[in-house]
């Protein structure tokens, strides 16, 4: 049916969508994997070891400060007391220095390379050396202090304290290098941190790009989904509209079929009524004919009378035969009917039918039975008359029947080339049944009858065109 094809794009869209979803899924997985791997790298920047290393740097610097201040206090006090007179106080300050220096706040060189990677300043090596020297120096300081404390405030004790102070001075010189080293380690660590920061920023940028891609992807998929959804809905709407259209069409067709059936039924009813009417009319006519024939029984012989009645009834019968064979139940072709009628009459009445030259001249014309029955009876009467009386003594003759239209009237002419009667009154005013029958039938047609006896006998009947 027209418009039954699916809406364009409906199926195509659904075929287009799965690759988009598949590509989206793959892209999504790639994005997630990228972000995950990147995050693994970032996680390494925040592990415990790194945090403890950072803490180590800060605490190392703070511890170094405490040791330097303790050393500074001791050396200032000692320089103000060259004879070590205040032995107890100096001993106390010395103990403070050794205690501070003994707190393990050294930066661990072992994981320095791991944190800093490439080590152009040889920090790991120098730190290891500095740590070893620091440990040796603090051990030596502790030993000398222990000796001074054991000897007590005497000559030997003061000499031991003097040795301790000398060792503390060279310890101070070494601390200067330690301080520089700790600054360099902190600087290197910060440089490494900045590198990590750049790495983090790159990673954030990558994540951002991934996020934008993801957003774009979601947008594309959403738009694709929305469009396919819209296409499906459009298709559904099309089908719905089409269905409605189809129902309307069918309803209209059914209504029209119903109307046609109803009209046909009405026509049949009219036709049946018409048939009853005609049967009634024909039976009435047959009854009339029989009544007329009965009055004629006294004058002629009985056989001839029945023969005439039979001829007349055949004319009526032929009309009905034509009627049921015709496609059109209400009209009969004039020429066809008259040809059959006259041939039958000639065949049954003429002594030698082959000697009778019959001709018919009529237009292609169909007439209703109401007109054709009187016409048929008139032609039967006139032809019978010609066959019986006109060719008396002759071997053959000619009979011509013609019908033509003249304006709103029809003109029927029946002519024979036989001997005409001496007086036309013999035909028109005859008491015979045939003459009165013809006169009655012409009256029934509301026509008039003329006679032309110039060449043979020519009967002309003019009647108005029957109303359809």
């Amino acid at each position, binding site marked *: 049916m027209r418009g039954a094809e699916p809406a364009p794009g409906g199926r195509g869209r659904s075929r287009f969508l799965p690759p988009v979803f598949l590509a989206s899924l793959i892209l999504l997985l790639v994005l997630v994997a990228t972000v995950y791997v990147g995050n693994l790298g970032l996680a390494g920047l925040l592990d415990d070891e790194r945090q403890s290393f950072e803490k180590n740097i800060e605490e190392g610097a703070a511890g170094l400060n405490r040791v330097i201040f303790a050393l500074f206090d001791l050396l200032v006090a000692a320089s103000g007391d060259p004879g070590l007179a205040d032995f107890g106080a100096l001993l106390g300050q010395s103990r403070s220095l050794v205690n501070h220096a003994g707190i393990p706040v050294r930066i661990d060189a072992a994981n320095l390379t791991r944190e800093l990677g490439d080590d*152009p*300043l*040889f920090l790991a090596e*120098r730190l290891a050396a500095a740590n070893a020297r620091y440990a040796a120096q603090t051990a030596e300081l502790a030993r000398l202090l222990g000796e001074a404390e054991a000897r007590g405030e005497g000559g030997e004790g003061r000499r031991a304290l003097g040795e301790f102070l000398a060792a503390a001075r060279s310890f101070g010189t070494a601390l200067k290098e330690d301080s520089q080293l700790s600054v360099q380690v902190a*600087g*290197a660590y*910060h*440089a490494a941190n*900045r*590198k990590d920061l750049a790495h983090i920023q790159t990673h954030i940028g990558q994540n951002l790009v991934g996020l934008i891609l993801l957003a774009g992807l979601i947008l594309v998929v959403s738009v694709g989904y929305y469009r396919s959804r819209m296409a499906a809905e459009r298709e559904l709407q099309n089908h719905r509209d089409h269905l409605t259209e189809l129902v309307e069409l069918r309803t209209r067709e059914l209504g029209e079929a119903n109307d046609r059936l109803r009209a046909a039924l009405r026509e049949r009813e009219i036709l049946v009524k018409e048939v009853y009417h005609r049967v009634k009319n024909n039976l009435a006519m047959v009854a009339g004919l029989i009544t007329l024939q009965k009055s004629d029984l006294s004058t002629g012989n009985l056989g001839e009378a029945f023969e005439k009645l039979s001829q007349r009834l055949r004319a009526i019968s032929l009309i009905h035969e034509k009627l049921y064979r015709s496609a059109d139940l209400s009209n009969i072709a004039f020429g066809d009917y008259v040809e059959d009628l006259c041939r039958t009459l000639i065949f049954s009445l003429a002594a030698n039918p082959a000697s009778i030259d019959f001709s018919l001249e009529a237009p292609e014309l169909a007439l209703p039975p109401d007109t054709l029955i009187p016409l048929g009876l008139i032609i039967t009467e006139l032809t019978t008359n010609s066959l019986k009386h006109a060719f008396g003594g002759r071997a053959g003759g000619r009979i011509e029947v013609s019908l033509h239209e003249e304006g709103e009237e029809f003109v029927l002419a029946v002519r024979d080339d036989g001997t005409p009667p001496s007086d036309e009154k013999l035909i028109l005013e005859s008491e015979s049944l045939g003459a009165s029958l013809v006169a009655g039938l012409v009256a029934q047609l509301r026509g008039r009858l003329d006679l032309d006896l110039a060449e043979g006998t020519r009967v002309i009947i003019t009647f108005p065109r029957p109303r359809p």
Partner: protein
Amino acid sequence: MNCPPFLRSLAPVLALCLLAAPAHSQEDRAKVIASIPLPAGLTAEKADLTLRGRIAGGLPLYLDLATLQAFPQSSFACVDPWDGKRHLFTGILISDLLARAGIEAGATRIVVEAKNKYSIPIRRADWERYGYMLAFRLDDRPFSEDKATRNRGLLIVAIDFAKYPELDPELYKHQLVWQVADILVE
């Protein structure tokens, strides 16, 4: 390629000349450096710079500023990480100086020490690849002419951070020793 046959026959010779050209100039430079006279009779106290360690002869080499200035000089401009300002550094390549001193092939690093005993090691790969400089002029003036730069001393180590962005100034600034007095080759 379409060229006269005589040129084609000369091509190998021309190629050899082209290849030899840089080597030739490198050779010239080496010759120039080797021909620089080293001062005799300078003592540790009077020297502006002492070279020690794995050098030819094994004995300390005492140098003065005039000797250093006889080496091929060059300049570059970059931001100094210590004051954050852009300066023009002028001086000689440490590699040239060490070549003249006859650095041993197996030596891997130097330890540069300042007058105040601040010291820092430098890898041989670094000073050779990145053209470490022993500078004696800042913005085309000796350090002593400017109050702000006087404490930097007579000689400083300078690195072209503009030319080598892969060197992180935060880390390498510790090698920018001021008042360089002693270089120990190890």
